[in-house]
């Protein structure tokens, strides 16, 4: 292959990738710039003064940013486990077993996203106050789990539905019981989809603030509450910094899940 032919093969892809990179990182550039901006206003097209004073403000000891970040992460981890525990069986049943009003059940799980959440949370808070659940991690996890279910049930159902039935039947014909078939064939094949839903649940929980406010505060404080306040009032520096901090656990979780996935797939190949 001549150099020219090679270039013409690679060029369109390169151009597309560069364009996409601009589209994706363009808006994020603003986030990065604001996080280290001290002064930036019209008519200046770039900050007049750069610095880390807002980072100092976020991380000052009385601000409790680290403590809220750790609380946020654990709440998200617990929420993922709770969602998976509920949605794996539910998704399997919805995809594979005969259920009355299956479509209605699926529709029901979409509801928590559609209605304005504030009136719901007021009532949930009222119930939780009677049960002494307000101001506890468990209470916040429950509320986040409800919202996570929207994603995890729908995605788990789709993942189970996509598993090739003939593989399950082959296992059954070879004498495997239903539980064994599920554990060795169905679940592993549906795992990539289920893990994708785990990532979404984690992100959803890590970025949530309305439910946390009603059910968690003043005893449980998470970092998104600070991010929400700062964003709403246009405090770009603080909002950008908190968003950047929240990126770390999000990406770490994604990497952990992917690593775990790959190991799992490899293990299967080995046996």
């Amino acid at each position: 292959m001549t150099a020219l032919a090679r270039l013409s093969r690679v060029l369109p892809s390169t151009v597309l990738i560069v364009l996409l990179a601009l589209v994706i990182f363009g808006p994020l550039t603003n986030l990065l710039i604001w996080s280290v901006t001290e002064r930036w206003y019209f008519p200046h097209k770039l900050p007049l003064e750069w610095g880390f004073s807002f980072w100092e403000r976020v991380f000052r000891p009385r601000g409790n940013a680290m403590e809220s970040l750790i609380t946020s992460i654990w709440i998200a981890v617990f929420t993922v486990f709770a969602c998976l525990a509920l949605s794996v069986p539910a998704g399997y049943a919805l995809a594979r077993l005969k259920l009355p009003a299956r479509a209605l059940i699926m529709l029901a799980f979409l509801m928590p996203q559609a209605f304005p959440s504030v009136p719901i949370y007021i009532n949930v808070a009222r119930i939780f106050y009677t049960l002494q659940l307000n101001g506890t991690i468990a209470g916040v996890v429950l509320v986040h789990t409800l919202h996570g279910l929207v994603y995890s049930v729908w995605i788990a159902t789709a993942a189970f539905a996509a598993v090739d039935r003939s593989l399950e039947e082959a296992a059954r014909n070879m004498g495997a019981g239903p539980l064994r078939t599920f554990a060795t064939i169905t679940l592993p094949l549906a795992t990539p989809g289920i893990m994708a839903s785990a990532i979404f649940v984690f992100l959803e929980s890590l970025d949530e603030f309305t439910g946390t406010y009603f059910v968690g505060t003043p005893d449980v404080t998470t970092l998104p509450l600070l991010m929400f306040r700062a964003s709403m009032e246009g405090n770009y520096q603080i909002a950008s910094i908190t968003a950047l901090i929240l990126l770390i656990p999000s990406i770490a979780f994604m990497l952990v899940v992917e690593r775990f996935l790959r190991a799992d797939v490899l293990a299967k190949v080995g046996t």
Partner: protein
Amino acid sequence: MRSPSLIGLLLVTPALLLLAALFVYPLGFSLVSAFTVEGAGDGGDRFGLFNFVNAYELYATDIAFTVLIVGLSTALIGIFAVAIGGYLTLGEVGFAVALLRWLYRWPLFIPFIVAAQCMRTFLAKNGLMNNALSAAGLLEPLSAQSFLDWRGIVITFVWKQTPFVALLVAGAMASIDRSTIEAARNLGASRLRALIEIVVPQVHAILVVGLVLSFVTMMSVLSVPMMISGNTPTMMTVDMAFRINAYGDYGTANALGFISYLLTGAVAWIYLRRGVREGPP
């Protein structure tokens, strides 16, 4: 077909119980308020559709606007997600595929409220995008225009939500049988044709699930329309927040929520009808 599976019911029950306790039961109070006229007549409440009439009279344009915005965004998200997934599956330039895999997910990690903030400072008339374009000589500063209207909302939604669907679709595409694709390619089908005729039909179900979930999510986001566009018409979530914060009027807010759920339900139904037709065993 067997009779309804008892095990099946047992398996969905825990999830349904949580939904019932933390959502349906609290929603009950809310829905009652949507159908209630407070303090009507002799001081008591009575049932009626007043809140729905109010919602329709004041916000009919906003409801239509919301459906158009979210519908258009969903369509664009579908196209871009398939394109990304397709390139990851069928792409032949190794480094480009690897770069794309690394690139496309970033917006997934940015919460909506921060995405809205980024876009507001990026797409504005004197925002970073126009400033960069004019510095590069690609744009006359005087002809710069702001995208902070319906276009800004759509751009933000598509930017934020495409990776979500693309991640699902790319996962499904990676696990399909490659022999059919290769057979088609050997017969001379272009990559685009292989994508549309061979790959997409096999991941159709998960694509639609991703789009339905995106649709619901976008219907419920307040921060994006609130922070991007100050113009009327606006989206229903802004109206709901306004009814609550300005008047303490949960009735009309819930009536709007009910309408929003019906719209979402209609879209989800399209997917579910197909599922019912194919049917579980």
